[in-house]
């Protein structure tokens, strides 16, 4: 691929990342109340499981892969970063696409 189109694509992608993060987070705020945000806290079992799976199990999978598969430090760092990003901005959109608990529109 020629250098210019590739650079242009990177620029488009980078601008789109900011547009996506800001718009989707603002949209999320437009759909919820503080009460909605705190609702999952009342389901302690689900909350514990979510914390366990997102912040313990998934990073452990990454650490296991790093231990088992020889890889350079940059790749290992990237994998660890991905593994601890449980609530990356794209997660809300993935939840919306796959039918998870994306905030439904309420009056």
């Amino acid at each position: 691929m020629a250098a210019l189109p590739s650079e242009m694509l990177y620029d488009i992608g980078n601008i789109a990342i900011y547009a996506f993060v800001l718009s989707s987070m603002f949209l999320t705020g437009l759909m919820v109340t503080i009460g909605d945000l705190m609702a999952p806290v009342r389901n302690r079992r689900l909350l514990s499981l979510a914390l366990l799976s997102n912040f313990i199990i998934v990073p452990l999978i990454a650490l296991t892969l790093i231990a088992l598969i020889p890889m350079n430090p940059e790749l290992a760092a990237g994998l660890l970063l991905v593994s601890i990003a449980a609530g990356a901005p794209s997660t809300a959109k993935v939840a919306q696409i796959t039918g998870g608990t994306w905030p439904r529109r309420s009056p």
Partner: protein
Amino acid sequence: MTILMTIITILIMPILVPFILEGADAHPLDVLVNLVVLILIPILLGILVKSRSGALAARLRRPMDWISNLSIAAIFLSYGIIFLASIGEIVSTSTGATAVSVAVVFTLAALGLTYLLGRRFEEDSRMDLASGPGSGTSPQPSSWSLRALRTSRTMSFSWCSWSVSLR
């Protein structure tokens, strides 16, 4: 639950990133400021708008949804094209081949384990548990296939972005 996980991520990322990126110039405060400005403030601003004027919030939802959908399409298209154009080059190196295979194994393992953990919960909750690293399914086989298809499509784009970002 998804938003709650996002907020928890904002809190723990600044603490963990300097340890993960040892030797890199990643100050916890810089990481925190970036996450607060890009994620927390827009969420709080949206909540504020909704609490002050439900009508304005309702009017803003549609354009925001469009911007969000168009920009995620632009992300996947631009990085997808870059990734697909150089996929031969990426997988021909041992680092690239390792990155792609590790991404596939990691995503499948994370998706499977988190979904299995949430199997006693309702479908929405299972989806939430799995949608951080992957996503889940529903009990009906037809719906399962549809969701698996949607999920694999979404995740394949994530692999693309991730692999490109590693280059």
